């Protein structure tokens, strides 16, 4: 059922530093696969501040975060990296021959000689609203994403939020659900205008309920939800019958499964040396915001430097007999050939 891909390097995280690692590894003839939990490259640059300017990228007095990502993608194109989006690496296991078996939650497996963790602040995960006892319902009645629509058929569903995720799932699930109620703290939605319009039409025709307020508690037995209690803005509360709830409160960053890979950690960051940026497990490197060492600065700039040094060490590990001749892209014809400019 699962496919297995063999490659030189698997890079976990397709933010700016993960992308630039492809460049440095590519110059040394190493092939890379990039895995990211988001559905596009860019990491925090894409998810947190796409429109914001960055002022400390050398030679760019100012560059937009998304523009930086576009330029990095262009820069690494000659090396033909393969992207695997929308999936999270769950396991990294050392094999007898020293290589690593990497498995994602989408069932994709990789065999790689080197693993590079460039996971930034961790993986983006849905925020859990601070509703008392919500954990008990997660996975049975409370869901942060829809894996199978069928699990929602004929259910009483409460969807919380005012953005595109909340609206899209309201509109998608409304036809198959017994009843859908959308709960939002204000009567103003930031989702796409046509989705808002469609939602309002359904409310007007009585096919959908809209409640303005904030969820204050949940009612149910064991893991089976029976009602969502909403505190309205006038202070009154209303209990909405519900067997399913989907909260959409945006994303937050969590270290996630990395914590269980046996690497030395320091305050949720991966400890590395400053020569190779290698973790406590030989063959696994960590670069960018996810690592820590004396004097560490969480700058994209630092991540780029770490990528360059990591690549040298990775090459030596993968090709121990090959003599590495240090070359400049400005003058080396062989590097220029790899970049496709010769």
């Amino acid at each position: 059922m699962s496919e297995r891909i063999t490659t030189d390097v698997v890079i976990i995280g397709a933010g700016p530093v993960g992308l630039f690692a492809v460049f440095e590894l590519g110059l040394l003839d190493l092939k890379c696969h990039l895995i990211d939990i988001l559905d596009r490259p860019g990491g925090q640059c894409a998810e947190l501040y796409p429109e914001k300017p960055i002022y400390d990228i050398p030679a760019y007095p100012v560059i937009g975060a998304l523009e930086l990502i576009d330029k990095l993608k262009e820069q690494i194109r000659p090396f033909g990296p393969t992207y695997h989006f929308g999936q999270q690496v769950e396991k990294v296991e050392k094999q007898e021959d020293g290589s690593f078996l990497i498995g994602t939650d989408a069932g994709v497996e990789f065999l790689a000689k080197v693993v590079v963790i460039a996971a930034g602040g961790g993986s983006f995960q849905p925020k859990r609203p601070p509703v008392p006892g919500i954990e008990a319902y997660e996975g049975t009645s409370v869901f942060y994403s829809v894996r199978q629509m069928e699990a929602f058929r004929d259910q009483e569903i409460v969807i919380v939020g005012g953005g595109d995720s909340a609206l899209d799932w309201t509109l998608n699930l409304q036809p198959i659900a017994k009843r859908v109620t959308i709960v939002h703290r204000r009567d103003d939605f930031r989702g796409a205008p046509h989705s808002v319009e469609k939602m309002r039409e359904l409310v007007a025709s009585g096919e959908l309920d809209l409640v303005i307020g904030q969820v204050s508690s949940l009612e149910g037995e064991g893991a089976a939800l029976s009602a969502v209690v909403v505190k309205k803005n006038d202070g009154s509360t209303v209990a909405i019958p519900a067997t399913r709830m989907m909260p959409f409160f945006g994303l937050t960053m969590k270290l996630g499964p990395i914590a269980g890979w046996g690497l030395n950690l320091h305050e949720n960051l991966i400890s590395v040396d400053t020569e190779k940026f290698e973790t406590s497990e030989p063959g696994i490197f960590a670069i960018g915001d996810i690592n820590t060492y004396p004097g560490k600065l969480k700058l994209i700039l630092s991540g780029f430097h770490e990528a360059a040094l990591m690549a040298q060490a990775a090459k030596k590990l993968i090709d121990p007999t090959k003599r590495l001749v240090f070359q400049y892209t400005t003058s080396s014809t062989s590097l220029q050939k790899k970049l496709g400019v010769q």
Partner: protein
Amino acid sequence: MPKITFIPYRQEEITVEAEVGSTVMEAAVRNGVPGIEAECGGACACATCHVYVAEDWYGRVGAPQPMEEDMLDFAFEVKPNSRLSCQIKVTEELDGLVVDIPERQA
């Protein structure tokens, strides 16, 4: 320099000096005020620097811009006096500002 008082949830209040032109979030982070996480670093992209502006100050601080209002959707226990502290610019007029920090950010 204007002074800002932060009241962390069920903790002693902390008064700090804030530079004119900086943000209330920056004043909190620089002084290690607990409860202001500012995960995104002030890009109005995460809602983890959520504060409640003291009632007698809310008029002077003003209401959030639409982008901040959208981001407040991701905050918890949003009240009419909720603001994201990264979007409040420190001015001389805000000398003495008091903000409450919610029980949790995320």
